[in-house]
């Protein structure tokens, strides 16, 4: 049992990756940054539940092994299948969002960073259902940048997923998805929280591919 579960996790992980590539031809576009094994926090826009698997799928194997998505425990522990996929396939750092639980999410995130993992986070906190590019960022990204200044914060734009798999639809559309990684940002000396979050958000939305329509 204990030997089989990691094997099953690997097989499921590869299947998810192949499925993502077959359906959306998902591709990584590294702009101003290289896919090298440095400790990083990939922070991304969030429009669909498919965002995280897409980023995970395009990372080269050496980087994917060290990356841990930060995700909501209520979503990933909802049933047995999700409880296998979230923690074991994606190796998620699970955050409890329930108000009555006095769990400090930042402690878990910093602990994961201190173990040497890279992270995938969605600083908007929720899926963006509006027409705006991004919702206002939560403070988490700033706190991470402040507490662990050596870690690169990498803006990561996932294009098209709100059309491929909008909320409420069952069949994913096979449209092309591109994941664009940009130059990393760091919290500068004396930079205020709001200034930093605005700068980080702009670095992210600048990566959005320009397509006239």
């Amino acid at each position: 049992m204990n030997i089989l579960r990691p094997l099953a996790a690997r097989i499921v992980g590869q299947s998810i990756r192949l499925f993502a590539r077959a359906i959306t031809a998902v591709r990584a576009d590294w702009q101003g940054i290289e896919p090298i094994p440095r400790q990083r926090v990939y922070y991304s826009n969030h429009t669909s539940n498919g965002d995280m698997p897409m980023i995970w799928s395009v990372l080269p194997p050496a980087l994917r092994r060290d990356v841990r998505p930060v995700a909501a425990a209520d979503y990933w522990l909802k049933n047995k299948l999700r409880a296998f996929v979230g923690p074991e396939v994606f190796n998620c750092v699970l955050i409890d969002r329930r108000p009555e639980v006095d769990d400090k999410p930042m402690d878990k995130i910093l602990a994961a960073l201190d173990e040497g993992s890279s992270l995938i986070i969605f600083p908007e906190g929720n899926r963006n259902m509006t027409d705006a590019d991004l919702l206002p960022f939560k403070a988490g990204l700033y706190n991470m940048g402040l507490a662990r200044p050596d870690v690169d914060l990498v803006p990561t734009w996932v294009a098209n997923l709100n059309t491929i798999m909008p909320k409420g639809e069952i069949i994913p559309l096979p449209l092309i998805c591109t994941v664009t990684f940009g130059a990393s940002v760091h919290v500068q000396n004396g930079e205020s929280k709001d200034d930093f979050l605005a700068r980080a958000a702009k670095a992210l939305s600048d990566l959005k591919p320009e397509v006239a329509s």
Partner: protein
Amino acid sequence: MNTTTIDIIWLSLGAFAILVGLTFFGEVLRARQDPNTQNPVLETFMTRVQSWWGMVILIGLAMLTGKIGVTVLFAFASFAALREFLTLTTKAQADHLSLALAFFVIMPLQYFFVAMEWSGLYAIFIPVYAFLLLPIVSALRGNANRFLIRVAETQWGLMITVYCVSHVPALMNLNIAGQGDRAILLVTFLVMVVQLGDLLEYFFGRRFGRTKIAAGLSPKTWEGVACGVISAMLIGGLLSWITPFGLWGAMAMAGIASLTGMFGNIVVTAIKRDRGVKDWSHLIPGQGGFVDQLDSVIFAAPIFYHLTKFYGVA
């Protein structure tokens, strides 16, 4: 082994010989340049030659497996092309179901009809049935915002990437008197004259091109197109033994296919310029996407199909 199979093997060997020549030519140029510099034109050329190797091998294998192989190959090409096209079109969440139907029902059915040789149905399925039914599915979701643009662009995508592309394998259904299973060779004829015509148009256009056909849109010149079409006609004449048209007929058909294809390329370029993209995708190294690779064949295929059909009747 029958004569058709032997002819397919000869054609594949001929294509391999051309590719060996091009690979050798590129490697010689590479060896002659200063090892510390990189010539981007040469590198693009070499990537393209590699992609051509892949395509020739795939088409050759598909031809040897026969009708089903060729139909499946073009069905996959259609899927990839439709995906590129609809990625760039206007759409809303109200279109989600009609777009899913386009990918998972309309596209497979069109190729199923081609495989079943139901020519009356595959000729009208997308221009009539999909044309009328998909807008209904979109309208039922009650979003009128940019409705005409949305349904028109979806229909255009289906016509270009599914209807037109499916006319390449549909060529195999044309039964011209006394030709038997040799209709499969028409696929090779069409693809070879159009693609080689394009290649030579590019080459001559760079050398002698003066007068732009559509300035500000496409680098194509009248001189380049004229040279390309004449080359395509000569190649068509050389390949006339695989067609039912005879020498002059094959040259005429090659010229018409090549000319239609080159203007088709300008149309597809206009769409790309409008959407502000250079290529449709990055799936074929050195070439861009499937639509970039297929644009001229897309426009040539239905016209070549119907002219061949008229020829068979006449």
